[in-house]
């Protein structure tokens, strides 16, 4: 019983990682770049929802939509201003460094606008806690909503990529930008669309993250962002189901090692497992081995 209760905590934490990792892996899979600013777009989503509910008094669910709109626009603007000019840069490191720069830019702008005092975030989820076995096992509404949203997002993304024209274009761009362009695909538009979707997902992730762990500050997104990146690598970066599985596993391992081994060493254990997995399967759990074309 104790084990199950810890397992549920693990799924709770893992589902938050998973929903962030989905956005990471989506952008990496298509644009082949690590968007380190993803964690901070999440934070912006959290703030957008926070102000929509607290200052404008809109319904929490509407605030999620507002957050999505804000983040989608932000994602497109970031891509347009920061990443697009560097798309043909000689080194892919240039984009990576820019992404880190964007991350700091967002953090510090948020610091200037919202101040540094952490804010209490009121959960947008209004589902009562589920009690099983006479209340010995509790599953919070946030956990259920996060897991269900994860699955819905995962299914929708997979369908979108494989069944729609824009999705097919994304696959083509990820395979070979030059050839895709020759086939009449608008590469810039496709990558912009990828960022728009990724950032929209970030908004959902931000709201869910802040609902589960109810404080919000300009640094809220950075550490979960890094953990989610690890989860995406763990599951196989670029793979959408991989991000989901990686996120859940990471959360479960973290909580169980806290519970049964040492609360102090949990991060060391998580990263130890990551190293092990990558040694046995360098592309991650569900990662595909792509032959490097010469």
């Amino acid at each position, binding site marked *: 019983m104790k084990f199950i209760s810890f397992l549920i905590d693990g799924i709770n934490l893992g589902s938050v990682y998973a929903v962030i990792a989905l956005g990471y892996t989506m952008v990496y899979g298509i644009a082949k770049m690590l968007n380190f600013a993803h964690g901070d777009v999440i934070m912006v989503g959290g703030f957008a929802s926070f102000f929509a509910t607290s200052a404008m008094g809109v319904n929490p669910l509407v605030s999620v939509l507002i957050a999505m709109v804000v983040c989608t626009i932000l994602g497109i603007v970031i891509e347009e201003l920061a990443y697009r000019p560097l798309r043909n840069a000689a080194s892919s490191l240039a984009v990576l460094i820019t992404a880190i720069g964007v991350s700091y830019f967002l953090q510090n702008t948020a610091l200037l606008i919202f101040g540094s005092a952490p804010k209490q975030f009121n959960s947008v989820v209004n589902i009562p806690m589920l009690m099983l076995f006479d209340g010995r096992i509790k599953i*919070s509404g946030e956990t259920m909503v996060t897991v269900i949203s994860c699955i819905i997002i995962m299914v929708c993304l997979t369908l979108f990529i494989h069944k729609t024209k824009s999705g097919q274009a994304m696959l083509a761009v990820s395979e070979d930008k030059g050839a895709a362009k020759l086939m009449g695909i608008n590469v810039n538009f496709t990558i912009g669309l990828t960022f728009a979707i990724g950032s929209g997902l970030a908004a959902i992730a931000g709201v869910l993250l802040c609902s589960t*762990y109810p404080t919000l*500050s300009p640094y809220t997104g950075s*550490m979960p962002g890094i953990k989610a990146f690890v989860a995406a690598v763990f599951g196989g970066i670029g793979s959408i189901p991989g991000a989901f599985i990686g996120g859940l596993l990471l959360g479960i391992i973290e909580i169980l090692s806290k519970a049964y081994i040492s609360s102090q060493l949990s*991060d060391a254990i998580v990263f130890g497992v990551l190293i092990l997995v990558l040694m046995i399967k360098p592309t991650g759990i569900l990662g595909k081995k792509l032959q490097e074309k010469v």
Partner: protein
Amino acid sequence: MKKMKKLLSLLVVTTMVASMLTGCGNSKEATTWKIGGIGPATGDYAQYGLGVKNAIQIAVDEINEDGGINGVQIEYRFEDDETNNEKSVNAYNTLKDWGMNILIGSVTSGCSIAVSGKTSQDHMFQLTPSASSVDAIKNDNVFQVCFTDPNQGTGAAAYIGDNNMATKVAVIYDSSDVYSSGIYEKFALEAANQPYEIVATEAFTKDSKTDFTVQLKKAQEAGADLVFLPIYYTEAALILSQAKTMGYAPTFFGCDGMDGILTGVEGFDTSLAEGVILLTPFAADATDERTQAFVKKYEERYGETPNQFAADAYDAVYIVKAAIEESGATPADGVSGICDKLVKKMPELKYDGITGEGMTWSATGEVNKNAKAMVIKNGAYSLIQN
């Protein structure tokens, strides 16, 4: 490209001219006390840094109105370090370039340790209002206004035992933070001599400080009726809300890092903190005249009740003033000369402040004063009368 180059050269020229100007400023005979402050004005612990920044300003203004220290006016400048060690050292360098004589800072232990390496090299007098780690005062030139961590840990352990507050105690602390782990170690040592037992010791690190359900569950399973939290309020706020979700309601007991929980997290549901007890040297609702005057002035100017860090900083300025007056130091002595005189005077000084009556210092820089226990009642701190 050409434009860029022009712009760049313009920038370089401006900086050069600017640096020449500051050069002139330094060469003039120093006629004021230049007191610098360092602390987190932004970031997770801004509540502390801003408190310190504002309180120093109040004290400096009061002293200047009264004619300064031995007739010499004070200039004051505060730099932000965002609770980041490197930024704290950078802030120190900026202040040194400005011509600082005496440093009041940094606010947090980690930053103070980082900066004390530099102040010791430069032989500059450093008085930290709130860094409580023993390592922060390792160097001869550094003194403290607040308690050291060992004192807090020992004091808290003894207080819980003396007042029979619990039979089973759990501890949740931040093992990546020198403040938190320092208190915990001494707490554990002293708890061994107390009538209660520690049934669970759980840690977290700065990289995983959002989910505390496991730590709380383990404390609950071990049957702890008191949870000791030697941590800062940001994490404590999350712990309180997660404990409530779980339906776990022990007594929560904190140290000075818990100070700020009522106002530090915007929109925090203060009913969660009801009944939380904390040991701190300062109570804003104390009835003595100086505390009331300070609290009133602070509330008028900054619109909030000062926390313990602000009170420590306010005392810090007056301690510096007292030490200067008794040692007869002047700005003309230079940084190193001032430091020599003040360091010699500090162990002989006896000071009554708003964070403690009859404060005295050991030659190592440690302060000696009494802690007060406060309980959060109806959304406000109130002093526990023993």
